[in-house]
């Protein structure tokens, strides 16, 4: 699928991990990390590490390295066709854990994992774990809690009652966030109509932008920005947008009202602890992205502080409490969303 058979091990990250390793070695006699082994962790990503979804994983791994829990290195922009090979290379080099995304190589990646039973694989996947393959666990960004809250705000901020949603592909992780967002918006305003389009690409901002323009022409006054390019169309046409996975408000201070952010830290930290304790087994780490676990949150309102109706803020606050206490559960719906 990708035309970039190119993977590099960032020299900088290698240096950094060496330095961090040295720092840990110095710290060890002090007893700070005396009991836990410093894991060698490799990340393999199909896109550059700054691209939204992967950036969340990378940031969590860098944080774990700075804490001294792991030694981290990574290969970015690895084509799916090279992916299994790169997995093998790290496994052969004696890495304890490999993290990454196998949405495009589900079958091959599992075959590689089966060949290296002593290596823990923590992989983003659309599928579930396989009990017969004890060293491969799956995760995904189950941030529907935050998406739902951002939907409440969107429902209150849209005046035309038309919300446009531009997605890449209707895969489960995209669908469930869209559905949660729609549920939130409907709770504030049951009459809201949604226009849903998929552009058939993850990184085609010009196309996402064109699709967003068409939605705005069609009367949408608020856009759910699942893809890059959508917030740009909103900014140009002076309408509002809701961010997804990362906080995009700093780039669009006047138009991005709220963002649903994913935090990968709980997922990674749980896996690190299990590998260190020797209890890592086939599991679905999806729940670590739930709000209860600190896996997602609504970005600070920032420039929109004071501009969001109190009614919506109250509901967001109430639901946040209920989600955290378990009194309210956001429905997980992986079906492809349709326009209404």
């Amino acid at each position, binding site marked *: 699928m990708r035309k970039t058979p190119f993977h590099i091990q960032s020299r900088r990250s290698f240096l950094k991990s060496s330095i961090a390793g040295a720092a840990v070695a110095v710290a060890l006699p002090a007893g700070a990390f005396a009991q836990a082994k410093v894991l060698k962790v490799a990340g393999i990503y199909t896109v550059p590490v700054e691209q*939204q979804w992967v950036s969340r994983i990378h940031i969590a791994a860098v944080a774990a390295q700075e804490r001294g829990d792991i030694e981290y290195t990574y290969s970015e922009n690895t084509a799916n066709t090279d992916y299994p090979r790169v997995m093998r290379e790290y496994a052969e080099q004696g890495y304890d854990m490999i993290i990454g995304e196998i949405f495009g190589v589900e079958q091959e990646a599992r075959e590689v994992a089966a060949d290296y039973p002593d290596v823990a694989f923590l992989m983003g996947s659309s599928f579930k774990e396989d009990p017969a393959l004890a060293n491969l666990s799956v995760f995904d960004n189950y941030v529907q809690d935050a998406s739902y809250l951002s939907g409440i705000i969107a429902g209150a901020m849209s005046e035309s009652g038309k919300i446009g949603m531009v997605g890449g592909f209707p895969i489960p992780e995209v669908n469930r966030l869209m559905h949660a967002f729609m549920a939130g918006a409907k709770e504030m305003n049951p009459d809201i109509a949604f226009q849903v389009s998929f552009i058939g690409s993850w990184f*085609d*901002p010009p196309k996402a932008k064109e699709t967003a323009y068409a939605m705005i022409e069609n009367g949408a006054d608020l856009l759910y920005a699942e893809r890059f390019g959508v917030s740009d169309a909103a900014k140009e046409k002076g309408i509002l947008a809701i961010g997804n996975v990362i906080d995009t408000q700093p780039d669009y201070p006047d138009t991005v009202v709220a963002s649903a952010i994913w935090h990968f830290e709980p997922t990674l930290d749980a896996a690190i602890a299990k590998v260190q304790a020797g209890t890592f087994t086939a599991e679905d780490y999806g729940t670590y992205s739930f709000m209860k676990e600190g896996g997602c949150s609504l970005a600070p309102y920032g420039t929109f502080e004071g501009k969001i109706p109190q009614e919506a803020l109250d509901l967001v606050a109430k639901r946040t409490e209920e989600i955290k206490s378990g009194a309210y559960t956001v429905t997980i719906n992986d079906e492809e969303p349709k326009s209404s």
Partner: protein
Amino acid sequence: MDLFDILLSASFWAAAIRIASPLIFATIGELICERAGVLNLGIEGIMVAGAFAGWISVWAGLPLWGGVAVALLVGMAFGALHSVLSVPFGLSQHVVGVGITLLATSVTFYTYRVVLPEVSSPPKIQAFQPYEIPLLSDIPLLGPALFSQTPLTYAAFVLALITGLVLFRTPLGLAVRAAGENPSAVAAQGLSVTAIRMGAVIVGSGFMAVGGAFLTMSAFDSFFFDMVGGRGWICIALVVFGAWRPGKAVLGAILFAAFDALQIRVQQTSLGTVIPYQIFLMMPYVLSILALVLMSRSAQVPAALMVPFNKGTR
């Protein structure tokens, strides 16, 4: 909104022209190469390199047109490499072209990472803004569609016009076309087929890169890997569609773009709730293939396309 409303709206045609612009640059570039007898499959990678080079130059402080010039030069550099391998060395044009595409995308990512080792997202630039041409932009329908675009879109149309004039109205154009039809005749005239073909590939590759730069400097204001997303391959088909004629190729690009703009809009009508979105995304390609079948019947392929020329052999 039904089909007629969509087809009669200026915003629809404006979108079609916007989507067509990068395709026009790259299609004209490919057309020049093929007219001289060289198939340039490096197009996709050269567009990626151009998209990156133009954007990063502006980010580094060059003016917008300076960025366009850098993209042009980067494209010409890859074109030079392609032409050395494909013309004097006479290597397989398929292999050379695919190789150039792989090299250009890889070098682009390498350069990207060296220049921007740690960023939270690719930086944005101040991209070309739409410029309304006085008087012309007041014409109903046509005005907003054609004459309220960014300067780079106007440049695409001017380029197509100039290319047509040069190819069919000048001795240079005649020599280029002859190099693709009957290189022995060119050699018999005392002209260098090698020089003509290399020149065509270098210049054509430069235009392809500008097509890529359109994506990061006009259609959008930042660079993402994969954002060219197969547009280069579409341009190869558009050259065939246009029967190796610039005017027809431009029409083909606009037609393809119009189908694309249309599917985006139809997806949002009530039809979108019943028909799977993949059908809509497929529409521009399916319709273009149909049009291609009809149009290409009368097309005259340059006779010496993909045939290496060795001076003195028959």
